């Protein structure tokens, strides 16, 4: 799935001759894969925190700490920590893959899968199952 960047893998000008006049530099796919997967990670954690706060009072207390007395409640922690995890995962994957080629279809489907699970975990009819 991950290989060293080798220019010439795509025949972009062959597919779209109008690009020839733009003199575009070739770029590795690693940074794009990092963006796709990290977006999925961010949304997955958003969902994990949403459902997790229903299940675990300890997690809910941790998430509540992030409101800084502003009256936002546990949503402050869910949003803030998920955003931090998204940004950190993006940075780490970018550092790892900035000069690599990564199979983009695989990266996209991994990101999509995590995003859909995360979205499900933010759905009230799902997390209400765990209310006691």
């Amino acid at each position, binding site marked *: 799935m991950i290989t060293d960047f080798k220019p010439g893998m*795509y*025949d*972009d*000008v062959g*597919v*779209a001759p*109008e*690009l*020839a*006049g*733009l003199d*575009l530099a070739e*770029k590795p796919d690693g*940074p*794009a894969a990092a*963006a*796709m997967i*990290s*977006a999925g990670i*961010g*949304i997955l954690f*958003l*969902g994990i925190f*949403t459902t997790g706060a229903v299940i675990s009072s300890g997690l809910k207390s941790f998430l509540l700490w992030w409101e800084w007395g*502003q*009256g*936002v*409640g546990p*949503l*402050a922690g*869910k*949003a803030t920590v*998920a*955003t931090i995890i*998204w940004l950190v995962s993006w940075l780490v994957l970018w550092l790892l893959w900035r000069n690599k080629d990564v199979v*983009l*279809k695989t990266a*996209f489907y991994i990101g*999509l899968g995590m*995003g859909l699970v*995360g*979205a499900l975990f*933010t*759905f*009230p*009819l799902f997390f*209400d199952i765990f209310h006691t």
Partner: protein
Amino acid sequence: MELSSREVWTVIHGLVLGTLFLLAFAGGLAGLWSLKPGLMTTAGIKERMGRLYVGVWVMAAAAWGAVITGTWIVYPWYRVNLSTVGEDAYAGCANAILPNATCSPRDFLKSDVSGATSEWHAFGMEWKEHVTWAAPILATAAAFLVVYYGPRLIARPWLRAAVIVMFVGAFAAAVVGGAFGAFLNKVAPIV
């Protein structure tokens, strides 16, 4: 004609930033959709891409602005507990027909004092407040991909489709927030 500071912030959160998001999404989607081989000249691509870059980043910025103002400014006014008196959690909402100084919008909805309203909070607000945070994440990632590949998206239909999926995913998350936000502000306005 005047607006309270709370009304001004709800307008900024929903109407100003929400409208900007929708406009940028419409323009961005049209731009992305038309990035197909053979449709544009080289000069046309240069002109089109500059506009697309601005559009996708405006959409991402509007999404961040909407969720941050919504979560940190408007939402505390919605959820503050004003109505508890002794053992009665909703005493301050007795006979209320709308939220007021002793009955916050959340108290009002959960109390069911003015019809069957509690599901507006339990389903509508609970879904909106969480899933909407997916919108800026997806919009930012999509904007990055558009700028990173630029005109090369024209030659890679599958990648362009993947970016569109992320772009539309951001919109879908924002629609949940926007639609329930509009309904909730109708049923239980921030006062």
